[in-house]
């Protein structure tokens, strides 16, 4: 009988201890970051949407070596390369990354010999259709 009552009392005590925890957090400030109004700090190394860098004069650094496209595990980078007759250098006429397929692994950035392909900390990319996730040079090249 004693054990029975003790068990019940102990049970109730454990419930009270649990309730203390929730009450404690009830009066603490919530940790929520209200996203569209407040933004969380993003680490500078965040592997977000890709960008192509340009030099100081605004000329693209990319020389169309295609290494990024070849190393990409999901084949989401495609480009068209031509030889510019003006300075006899390889250049890309189009550079398309399909972010609908990209797995954001960062291997292309590591492989880029010119170091001109970089991740940005930009992470927002939503669209109503598939084509909206395929970004071309107009969005990727940062002048």
């Amino acid at each position, binding site marked *: 009988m004693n054990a029975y009552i003790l068990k*019940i009392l102990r049970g109730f005590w454990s*419930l009270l201890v*649990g*309730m203390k*925890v*929730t*009450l404690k*957090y*009830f009066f*603490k400030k*919530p*940790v*929520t970051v*209200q996203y569209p109004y407040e933004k969380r700090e993003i680490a500078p190394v965040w592997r977000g949407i890709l960008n192509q860098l340009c030099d100081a004069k605004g000329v693209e650094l990319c020389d169309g070596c295609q290494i990024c496209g070849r190393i990409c595990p999901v084949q989401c980078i495609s480009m068209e390369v031509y030889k510019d007759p003006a300075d006899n250098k390889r250049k890309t006429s189009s550079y398309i990354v399909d972010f609908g397929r990209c797995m954001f692994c960062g291997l292309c950035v590591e492989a880029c010999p010119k170091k001109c392909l970089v991740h940005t900390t930009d992470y927002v990319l939503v669209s109503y259709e598939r084509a909206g996730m395929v970004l071309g040079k107009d969005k990727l090249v940062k002048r």
Partner: protein
Amino acid sequence: MNISYGLENIWTWLITLIDRLFCRAGLPYIFAYTLEKIIFGVALLVFISISVLFLIWLERKVSAHMQSRLGPMHVGGWHGWAQTIADMVKLLFKEDIIPAKADKWVHRIAPIVVFVPSLMAFLVIPFEKNLIGQDLNAGILLIFAFSSLAVLAIIMGGWASNNKYTLLGGIRSAAQMVSYEIPLVLSVLSVIMLVGSLKLNDIVEAQQGWHWFAFTQPLAFMLYIIAATAEVNRTPFDLPEAESEIVSGYNTEYSGLKYGFFMLSEFTNMLIVALVAATVFMGGWQGPKWLPLPGIIWLLLKTYLIVFVLMWFRWTFPRLRVDRLMDFGWKVLIPLAFVNIFLTGLFMVVFK
């Protein structure tokens, strides 16, 4: 208690006015009486719907803050006050699905049936001394009689949906409700023994001053809170709609407004058990003499305190298992309730 309490006076004044008007017009009293009751009923419905909408919002806010979140924030501006309105309007205009193999009529009726008992119980709650639908002699009995009907709707819904999860939810609910009715009534029984009346107003007046039954009958109060939590299917006794086990329990197949009804009735039930707790154990509409607020405010304050405690339970505890639930009901709550009744009786015999 002759302190001028706002709402009650207005109500008495209104009744007198109607009575006199009808008397002048030479109509029988029964018409005046009917009109008064209709006015009261409509006012009650408005009160219930507003407080239920508020309760749902409150539940989300309370749960959120207990979990270091914020809860609804943006809908309607200030702290998402319009959140439940948006939810209800959306449910109203959502497609209403009746599963192909369901028992169509029972499936349709169940959400209506679930509402009736919880609404009926409001009839006998004294919001203030004279602000009461009908001060029945057997008021408290009526509440328990009706609240035990709620299980019918749940079984109906669970069975008619022709889904195994809903069926399990319905069966669980039947077992649970039947077992927890008993401690619920037994816990109040000791109070009734002390008061000697089933009238709710008598029970309230017996607690004049700070002689709340929550203090003089602490065990009964605790038993009532536990049994009431089970009665309204809230964690740790939310087995009929245990989300992580049987998806959504008895209302798994309900969509649109019918689901809305189930959701609203859950909160109406919660309101009613909290109102009963406030009335029977916490002095009802009576407040301290030095602060002459309307009685209804005191009652609601006490009610929301109980509601908060129920929410607090919900967001703290895990869920019991179905057989342990039965064990707990029959082996712990009912014996304790009997012990309490016995002690109360003994006390009454010895000290009277």
